[in-house]
């Protein structure tokens, strides 16, 4: 589904990603861990086509197509979704108008008619219930004045609306209370399907207790330096990253 080969990327001339290799197959859930500043968010942003980053080397294919050639909205239509580490506030743009545009643009891309108003609102209601989001939030402007946890929940709501085939969750668990954590995890689990995959970026084991990843990677200084089964997360939680640095001879 997603094949990343020797991906290098930089921002303002500074190289952050220094040769990432990653292969995500349909139905798999990968977790990426790694110390602050390692490049996890950078990798996510590069995958969804943020214009701030320049890819200097390497390739990414998504369902056999060259991802790096696609405009950001096309990547989205093709099934890629990023739950942002820091979702932005968009004052004045209502959640309803925003979601309606997003859904209808996606439908247009797939040669479908726009969703009728009634059907759209019904879908909003269903998905809102799915992430137990207060209806008050969806009547407001996008993320405007939302608390940290509410923003994260809103990301999962949008994910549920758009039903991506590959979702990248960048620290969606941080800032969440215990209940919210369970809801977010449930949200992800309910979207699990043989043809859907996820990349979950986190610092904590507790999210991984709910979302059982198949594979765990450690991203360090712009590279994936270790890949193993779920037991790796427990080991990291216990020992931190120093032993990995030692293994790398640093």
């Amino acid at each position: 589904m997603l094949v990343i080969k020797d991906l290098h990327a930089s921002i303002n001339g500074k190289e952050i990603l220094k040769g990432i290799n990653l292969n995500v197959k349909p139905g798999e859930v990968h977790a990426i861990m790694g110390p602050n500043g390692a490049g996890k968010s950078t990798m996510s942003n590069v995958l969804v086509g943020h214009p701030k980053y320049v890819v200097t080397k390497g390739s990414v294919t998504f369902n056999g197509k060259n991802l790096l050639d696609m405009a950001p909205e096309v990547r989205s239509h093709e099934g890629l979704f990023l739950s942002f580490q820091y979702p932005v506030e968009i004052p004045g743009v209502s959640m309803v108008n925003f979601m309606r545009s997003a859904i209808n643009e996606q439908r247009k891309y797939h040669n479908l008619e726009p969703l009728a108003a009634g059907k759209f609102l019904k879908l909003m209601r269903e998905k809102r219930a799915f992430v137990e989001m207060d209806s008050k939030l969806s009547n407001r402007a996008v993320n405007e004045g939302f608390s940290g946890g509410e923003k994260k929940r809103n990301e999962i709501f949008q994910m549920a609306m758009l039903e991506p085939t590959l979702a990248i969750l960048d620290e969606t668990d941080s800032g969440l209370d215990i209940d919210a954590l369970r809801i977010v995890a449930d949200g992800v689990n309910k979207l699990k399907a043989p043809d859907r995959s996820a990349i979950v970026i986190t610092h904590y084991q507790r999210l991984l207790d709910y979302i059982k990843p198949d594979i765990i990677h450690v991203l360090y200084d712009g590279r994936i330096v270790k890949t193993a089964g779920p037991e790796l997360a427990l080991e990291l939680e216990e020992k931190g990253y120093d032993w990995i640095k030692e293994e790398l001879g640093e």
Partner: protein
Amino acid sequence: MNIEQQYIDLFEEQYDALCHNSTELMNAPRKEAMAHFEKQGIPKKGVERYRYTRLDDVLKVDYGVNMQCLLPKFNPYKEFECDAKGLGTDLHFLVNGVYYDKKPSDAEGVYVGSLKKFAAEHPERLRPYYNRLAAAQKDSMAEFNTAFVQDGLLLFVPRNTKVEDTIQLINILHSNVDMIIFRRILVVIEQGAEAKLLLCDHVTQQQRYFSSQVIEVFVGENAHLDIYDLEETHNLTARVNHVYVEQEGNSNVVINGTTLHNGLTRNDIYVDMIGQGANVELSGMAIADKEQHVDNHTFVRHKVPNCTSHELFKYVLDDVAVGAYSGRVLVERDAQKSYSEQSSKNLCLNSKAHMYTQPQLEIYADDVKCSHGATVGQLDEDALFYMMQRGIPKTEARMLLMFAFVSDVIDQIRIPSLQERLHHLTEQRFRGELDQCAGCALCQK
């Protein structure tokens, strides 16, 4: 020969025709107004109030005049299919500044119709009002209007009368040659009365137009007046519009202006609050691209205690458009417990577009609450990217952001159908579908 001299000569040559086709009340102040205009001239560089707008270039054009008050062969009632389907307004037209005849609605002493006609029949009723506010300010461009203006609209609402339907005045410029037109609007809302006035400016042909408009507004105690002004002309139109408002105690005035399409526009709004508890809400939105120029200048005087004023102006500028907002609030020594807020927020979509914004507070009372703020910015790139990640293409995302940006100005409008219509027109404008005025887009569904 300088531009002023041309108009001074024209005035002298045509003085008899001017007066003959107007009425005594409007003729009386002409000569004095012309003398003031002659003395001050067209505002030059260095005139603070006109700092951002030069009128010399647009007045250089050799315009035709309409001193015989002729109406072109053009029936606006037929050529503008505007009826109850639209906004359900009580519709009136000024074509090239001349009132297009309609049976005056005389219900309960309310008069909406030709200013010239009413002034000819009942000059004594308008004498306390006509040109009182305009003359006091001695603005040379308003004096220019007083010297030449021959007709316009009168809205007179007597005591405690509530006019339910919105009164809509459509100004149409329709000519085969370049043309300068003058028009006057006089609004008298007596004590406890209420009305809503919608003004729409349109042009029909690809000529150069200069329109000079003076609106004088008198709002009595406890009276309410809303004025909505929509300009939808074209790149060859220059408009200089003066609005003078006098508010008595506990009166409420809303003035909301939209520049949707224009050439050069100068709106000058002057509000005198002379009775305690008066409240005024001024708001404006401008969308300008190409070489369009929009300048809103406001001056609100808190003369007595307990008055409130609110100002909200938002511009979206693209290409090499120029926007200006200068708002002056004067709180006089006796005007304790005044409340005033001014906000000017602007988007420049392009580094070549220019916005000048200058909120200004002058406070001589000590117990007041006044605030002002101004921002000029670009579209938020992070917000754009966020939307693109959700599948919304950049052009559409920009649209949503621009639309969101101006929507709170539109929300100031207290006529729901008009509010909805303006949301729609604004969206069309942002999408580039309203490249120029296509007749009365406001009315044609």
